[in-house]
């Protein structure tokens, strides 16, 4: 295989010791093109978050290889944007300062921060506007709803213009209406900035609505057991999630997950 922006080749990852540790991934293969939006779905505990840690270099793989932008990953990548289920904003910082945090850490922004401060702040305001939080700059996280906090978290993941955006169940803690609203926000962000997005979720509607391609993972130890291209034209409207062809895709993926869940005895 060649040409993928993110490539996993036969990746296994074991937490802890040889005998006693948990084998979380085994023989995982994946190839994501630059600018592609993929979703990974799978039963709970199958190793989805572990997959993220392996791809971003946050946790070393036990065997196999991870390549990002043509380079083998052997330590934390330094230019990934990440967001999780918990927004994990810093409560002592305003919304704007929370969004600015990555610029205080990631190079080359870090060394330019003092000289280009106002420009960076403008950029952060622009992002907040893109996710529908115009005018909330000076609010503190505790003054925001859960959905708003997650929007800020998304801005924080985007401010340094990462080529790779990793989202680990970012909307899982939100109510359905807020979640659907944020799908629209995320699609809009992606169409504007065109980062490569890897979205982990256990919500099939979310995966099919947002992604160009959906991967299904087996039960632990996780690997990809199915992939499916999603061809709906963009921008996608929420209505399509109620169309029969959409439902059929979701149903098909669901069947694969149920097969995966029945399988683990064989795999482990």
């Amino acid at each position, binding site marked *: 295989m060649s040409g993928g922006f993110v490539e996993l080749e036969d990746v296994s990852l074991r937490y802890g010791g040889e005998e006693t540790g948990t084998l979380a991934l085994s023989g995982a293969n994946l190839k994501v093109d630059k600018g592609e939006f993929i979703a990974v779905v799978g039963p709970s505990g199958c190793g989805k978050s572990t997959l993220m*840690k392996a791809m971003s270099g946050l946790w070393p793989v036990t065997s196999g290889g991870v390549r990002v932008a043509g380079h083998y990953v052997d330590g934390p990548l330094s230019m990934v944007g990440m967001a999780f289920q918990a927004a994990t904003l810093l409560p002592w910082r305003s919304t704007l300062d929370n969004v600015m945090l990555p610029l205080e850490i990631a190079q080359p922004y870090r060394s330019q921060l003092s000289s280009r401060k106002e420009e960076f702040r403008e950029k952060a305001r622009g992002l907040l506007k893109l996710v529908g939080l115009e005018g909330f700059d000076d609010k503190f996280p505790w003054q925001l709803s859960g959905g708003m906090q997650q929007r800020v978290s998304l801005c924080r993941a985007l401010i340094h213009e990462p080529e790779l955006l990793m989202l680990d169940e970012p909307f899982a803690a939100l109510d359905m209406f807020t979640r659907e609203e944020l799908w629209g926000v995320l699609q809009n962000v992606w169409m504007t900035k065109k980062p490569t997005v890897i979205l982990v979720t256990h919500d099939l509607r979310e995966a099919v609505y947002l992604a160009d391609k959906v991967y299904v993972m087996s039960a632990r130890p996780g690997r990809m057991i199915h992939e499916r291209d999603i061809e709906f034209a963009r921008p996608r409207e929420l209505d399509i999630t109620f169309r029969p062809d959409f439902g059929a895709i979701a149903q098909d993926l669901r069947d694969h997950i149920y097969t995966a869940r029945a399988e683990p005895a064989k795999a482990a």
Partner: protein
Amino acid sequence: MADTTAQPQSSTPAASAAPQAGGLKLSQRQLERVMPWLVVFGLFAIWELTVRVFDFPQFILPAPSVIFEAMWQWRVPIIDNAAQTAFTTVIGFGIAIVFGLITGILIGSSSLVYNGFYPVLIGFNSIPKVAVVPILVIWFGIGTVPAIITAFLISFFPILVNVATGIATVEQELKDVLRALGASKRDIIIKVGIPRSLPYFFASLKIAITVAFVGSIIAETVASNKGIGHLMIQASSRFEVPLVFAGLLVTAIMGVAMYVVANFVERRMTGWATRSQGDPGSQT
């Protein structure tokens, strides 16, 4: 979520607007404010009455009126010795802050240091500090130094533990977000760990200042020629029981005063911590 500690400012206008209705009726808030004074006053009244009714001898239990009289009579030495105790407490406490912050940050930042030092610190903390005072006297002689060191020894621990906890409990996901940006360990501690531990730190000051005060007094009672502890020991050896009680009373007042100051500082410095305790999702 109406957290009373979270809105100390907003309470004032609400409370002053309330009594229009009843004239003499006290609002809940006003009642909460005067309650401590009522309790203190009530206790003194009962005490005074009990002593008079049962006619306790003064050298067993002096009445509050007698104690206040003794306080007034001995006001000069009391103030003098109280100032000494306040001095040793504040110096010992100050050293404890510096030492507690530094070691707290070190211990909280590294699981290796944490695992290595924590058992030792626990062991050290369980030694009654009064048992250490004689050693300090051998090393430093009788006087101010053992009191300062005792105050320090007894009060750095709560500061250290709180700072270390604040730093060690940074959410893994937040660490991942930052590490994926190329953050070093140091970056994470400076940007997140230390600010995050500040509420823990300021909360610990309340405890630390109180125990530092206790430490000073312990040292003074064992090995000093000055201080409120020394004054009480002297008074009791001369059977001036009202003066002993006057010393106790002054000690209590000073303890409350120090706590109030520490509490005030805490509120001023880390308002965001009390406010963010409310349910973040509740405003959706």
